[in-house]
Structures are given as structure tokens and as C-alpha cells.
């Protein structure tokens, strides 16, 4: 037997401060920070409104899942993506929609089941997509998007497109068969897709050690012969860099990668879950790592912004949210007569 050289995971330490030597990045450091900050803050505000206001007011029915504390992951990945790349977000990745240009108006309307939402009321909460904007909606079954994202990537490769696919999922999702089948097919096909795991250490109430017996999600990359990278998921700059490397690889025809972003879910599983099963010290520990506060600190330290400017950003976002909610509340409910439309092409 020949000796074995396992491929990956390649370890990268998350760094709060970006290193100097990154001239090859397509966005300038400052711009990444600025845009990253804006979209993270916007996601936070929109989700706070949804979870802490509209849901409690009974204006949003059904399940509500937010990405509080882990916004750096979807936003960092989103900033890497080009406008024609395909996005496969999961249920805590609102920032990915925002980066792509989906508006808070559309999002509030979606949550409230109005026609102004992305799904005209057919779907709720984060089950939203838009083919024109190349955002594919999840179905509820965790990891079902993984083979689907792979298929889109295979098509892009066949079409000799420079575009690639970004697929985000949780740590718990990696237990599912579809996850395995998808990563395996992608790696055999060298499909141009970046798999991004937001490892927030819980799947609903289930902690990581009941979900998997390996230490890192990235360990699993070995079994697919693809690079696995671990990154600090609360550092938007670090996420950007790691995803950028994986994206460059995909665009260069070198196939998929798995980027594991370590983070924490600063909320219960959904709006109706207080997360009582989470030990207190985790809330405290991770509360201090808030990705928004962290990037603000970096921006201030580096002189990229001022306190006043940051306050203006937050104020603008609040106004945006107010205005968007008003718009969404004025968006009508779908008419019951549309119920049976579009089960098939042209059906009514």
C-alpha cells in the first residue's frame, strides 16, 4: 500500500486585524470593512425588528430564525461573490440576500406573507429565492441545497462561465446524507462551488458533540479530497479572505472547498425558543465577540471611520427599516383566487 497524504484541512487562524500583505484582494481592506459593517448592521437591525418586534406583535406568523452574532459569515461570503455568481443561503444568512440587493422592504413583506415579498406569500421567512438575482431558496430539509448547489456549479462549469456558487449551511446540516452526497459529487466533478459552514455549535438544542464525533466540520473535507479551512466566523475580514481563496480556487477550475466558520448562535433556535439549554458562559463569551462591534473597533483603530460616522450608519439603517416595514405592511396579502396558480407552467 502506498503511504497516504490526506488533503486538508488547511488551518488558518482567524485574525481580527487584516494583515498588510493582501494586495491581491479584489476589494480594498477598508472597503471590505465598510461594506461588511453596513450589511452586518443592516442584517442585525432587520432581524431584530422581525424577531423582537413584528413577531411579538403577531404581525409575523410561523417560524422565525435569525443570524444574530453570526452575520460576518454570510456577509463576508457575500462580499466575495460577483453579481452573476449563484447564492445558496441557509436560514440565518439574511446578509447574503442584502449584499445581493434584496431590499428590507421585500424581506419584511416576505416574512409577513405579503405579495411584495420574494415568494408572493407562498412561502414564509427565509424560504425565499429569486432566480433573476440568482438566489436559490432552501427547502426546510437541512442540507438539501447542497447537491442542488453542486448541480448549478456543474452547469456553470459546462457553460464555461466564470461564475461560481456559494452554498452556506449549518453545522447540524453536515450530518445529513444530502450533505455528504453533495460534497462528494462536487469534489468528483470539480464543480466550482464554495461550501461554507456556519458552525454555531448548536443545531436547535443539540450541541456539536451530539452531532459529530470529529473536532471540526472542516475535518470532513478530507473525505472529499478538498481543502478544508477553519476561520474565525465572527471576523468579517477573516471570513472574506478565506472565502476569497476558496472562490478563486473554484473560479480557476480547481474545484470545491469547505470553509468552516466558527461562530455562535446568539439567540435561541427560533423566536419561540429561549435557548435555555445553552450554558450561561457561552452567551457571555460569545457576546463579547460580536462581529459588528469587532469590525467597528478595527475601523476606528485604523482610522477608517469615526464614532459619529458609525452612529450615522446605524441611524440610517434604522430609518431604512422603519420605512421598509411601513412599505411591507401596505403590501397586500395575496388573493385567495391565486391559490392554485403556477403549480405547473401556466396552471391556474
Amino acid at each position, binding site marked *: 500500500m502506498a503511504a497516504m497524504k490526506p488533503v486538508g484541512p488547511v488551518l488558518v487562524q482567524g485574525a481580527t486585524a487584516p494583515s498588510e500583505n493582501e494586495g491581491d484582494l479584489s476589494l480594498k481592506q477598508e472597503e471590505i470593512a465598510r461594506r461588511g459593517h453596513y450589511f452586518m448592521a443592516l442584517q442585525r437591525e432587520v432581524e431584530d425588528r422581525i424577531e423582537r418586534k413584528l413577531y411579538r406583535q403577531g404581525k409575523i406568523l410561523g417560524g422565525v430564525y435569525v443570524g444574530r452574532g453570526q452575520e460576518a459569515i454570510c456577509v463576508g461570503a457575500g462580499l466575495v461573490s460577483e453579481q452573476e455568481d449563484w447564492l445558496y443561503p441557509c436560514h440565518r444568512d439574511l446578509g447574503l440576500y442584502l449584499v445581493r440587493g434584496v431590499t428590507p422592504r421585500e424581506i419584511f413583506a416576505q416574512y409577513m406573507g405579503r405579495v411584495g415579498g420574494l415568494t408572493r406569500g*407562498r412561502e414564509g421567512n427565509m424560504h425565499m429565492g429569486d432566480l433573476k438575482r440568482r438566489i436559490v431558496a432552501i427547502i426546510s430539509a437541512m442540507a438539501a441545497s447542497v447537491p442542488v448547489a453542486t448541480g448549478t456549479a456543474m452547469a456553470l462549469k459546462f457553460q464555461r462561465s466564470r461564475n461560481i456558487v456559494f452554498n452556506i449551511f449549518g453545522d447540524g446540516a453536515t450530518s445529513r446524507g444530502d450533505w455528504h452526497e453533495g460534497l462528494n459529487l462536487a469534489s468528483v466533478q470539480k464543480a466550482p462551488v464554495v461550501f461554507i459552514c456556519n458552525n454555531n455549535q448548536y*443545531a*436547535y*438544542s443539540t450541541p456539536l458533540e451530539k452531532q459529530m464525533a470529529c473536532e471540526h466540520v472542516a475535518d470532513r473535507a478530507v473525505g472529499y479530497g478538498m481543502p478544508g479551512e477553519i476561520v474565525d466566523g465572527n471576523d468579517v475580514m477573516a471570513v472574506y479572505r478565506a472565502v476569497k481563496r476558496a472562490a478563486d480556487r473554484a473560479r480557476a477550475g480547481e474545484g470545491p472547498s469547505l470553509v468552516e466558520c466558527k461562530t455562535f448562535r446568539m439567540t435561541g433556535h427560533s423566536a419561540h425558543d429561549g435557548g435555555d439549554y445553552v450554558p450561561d458562559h457561552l452567551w457571555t463569551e460569545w457576546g463579547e465577540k460580536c462581529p459588528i462591534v469587532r469590525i467597528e473597533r478595527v475601523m476606528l483603530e485604523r482610522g477608517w471611520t469615526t464614532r459619529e460616522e458609525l452612529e450615522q450608519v446605524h441611524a440610517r439603517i434604522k430609518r431604512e427599516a422603519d420605512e421598509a416595514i411601513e412599505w411591507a405592511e401596505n403590501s397586500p396579502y395575496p388573493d385567495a383566487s391565486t391559490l*392554485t396558480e403556477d403549480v405547473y407552467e401556466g396552471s391556474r
Partner: protein
Amino acid sequence: MAEITYLEAIRQGIWEEMERDSKVFCLGEDIGVYGGAFKITKGMLERFGEERIVDTPIAESAIVGAAIGASFAGMRPVAEMQFSDFITCAFDQIVNFAAKTRYRWNAPAPLVVRAPSGGGIHGGPYHSQNPEAWFVRTPGLKVVEPATAYDAKGLIKSAIRDNDPVIFFEHKKLYRAIKGEVPEGDYTVPLGKARLHREGKHIAVITYGAMVHVAAEAAEVLDREGVSLEILDLRTLLPLDEEAILASVKKCSRVLVFHEDTLTGGVGGEISARISEKAFEWLDAPVVRLAAPDTPVPFSPPLEEAFLPNAAKVIEKARWLAGY
């Protein structure tokens, strides 16, 4: 006798079976510390420990597969699907492994797959489905769906004791909405037997699950019009209690087959076909079906409301039948 909810009745039933028989154990997602998404297993971890209340990874196929394997080794697994919508992820294990193993090589798989199903909770396409028809089409499985708290407890016990694989649908809408007198101690409700929910004269409504209560609501209104509905609650969908169905049909001669699941390919087709075949001469009108329209379950309230069957729709169909 205490009045308890449908949910509590199921919980009690499982609890008592676990006390009675150490081979019974539960497995599923978030059923331990959290007590399950709907709290069916609340308190069980403390009482029975980690080995009998097994929190699993998100892996429905492995959950059902492991239940099968444990049943071979003499255990009595009760597997929970967090929502019945995810039962499709375990489909091959259920319909190809569990359902066929007794027939193929005499290896029974006595297990229960519990699956909270049904709409009306603003759950949208993936937290509202009624997937029973897929399993009714699969020989080797038993399919159960209780409508009352009493039956919920009695049927879950029978399901656990049954020597064949049972898919046990629990209507989420009923969990907390329905209460009933439920004996605290041991009793069972037999699988395969329907229950006359309401005696009537003119129209036999063959239904199950949450729709039993919708039919009952309609019956009150129709009574005032002089139209008397008989309501048969099937309780078990596979095997069907053909005897009870035919008895109601022959008595009323007008039939409404009624379910919350979508129309085409739903269990209603099977029931209607059996009625036509075996009670043709007794029918004074076509066997009419009432079901949700053939679409996914939509999220937005006006759409979901239009989608779900309700008393008004039952009344409309019943009037038509009465006037035929």
C-alpha cells in the same frame, strides 16, 4: 379521569410504555434536554436517561435505520420525525427496509415512526404536509392518525406494542387544541379499527385526524337543516377498517370522503374506490371527495385558509349530496 390534551395523551402513552417495557426507547432530534420540538418527550430524559431518550444528529434516514436495527436486536424503538415533512428524508428506510423485512426473510421490524403532520399553523410548504398517502400505498406498514386525546394515548400504546412497523401521524393543530377525558392507567385502542365519532342518518363522512372535528362542526350546522351527518373516524389508514366503512356507507347511502391532504392520490381515492367496488348497489349518489387542492401548502394566511378544508366546504358538499 383527567382532561388532558392530545399532546399530553401521546406523551402519557409513550411514558407508560417506557415504564412498562424496558425495551421501549425513543430516538430523534432534540428529544432529550429540549423535550422535542413539540414537547412530547418532555421530562423523559430525566426519568429514563440518555440511553432511552437518544438525541440524534439531523439524519432522518439514520434515525429510522437505527430504529430498524435496534428492533432486530429486540428493542421497541419509537423514532420521532421533528416534522412529518422530513419523513421523506427517511423514505427508503421506511418503505424499502422496514416495510418489507418481515415478508422477505421473516424479520419483523416492530418500530414506531412518529410524525407531527398537518397544516393550520402557518408553517408553509414544509411544516404543514399530510404525507400519509405515501405510506398507505406501501404494503407492510401500518398507518395511524388519532383524532382525539383518548385515541391518541390508546393508539400510541398499541403502535408501540404492535409487531409491525407503524407510522404514527399526530396532527399538530390538535396537539393543544383538543382535550379529552383520558384514563391515567393502561388501556389500548386497537389498530385497524375505525370509530364512529357521530351517528347520523343521511350522509356518511369518512374521515380522520383533524378533519373529524371539522366534520363535527359542519354536522352541527347541517343538523339544523335536517341533514344528519354520520362521522366515521378511521383512526388507522392502513389497514383500512373496510367493515366499518361499508357499514356507514350502507346505512347512509350517501358518502363524503374527506381529508386535509391534497386530493389527487390522497387516501380518499382508495376509500372511494373500495366503496364503489363493494357497496355500489347501496349508493344513492356519487361518492364525493373533499380534500385540499393539489398545491403545496402555502404560507400566507389568506392562501392557507383557502387551501385548508373547513366546515363551510363540508357543508357545501353535504348539501349537494343531500339534494342529489
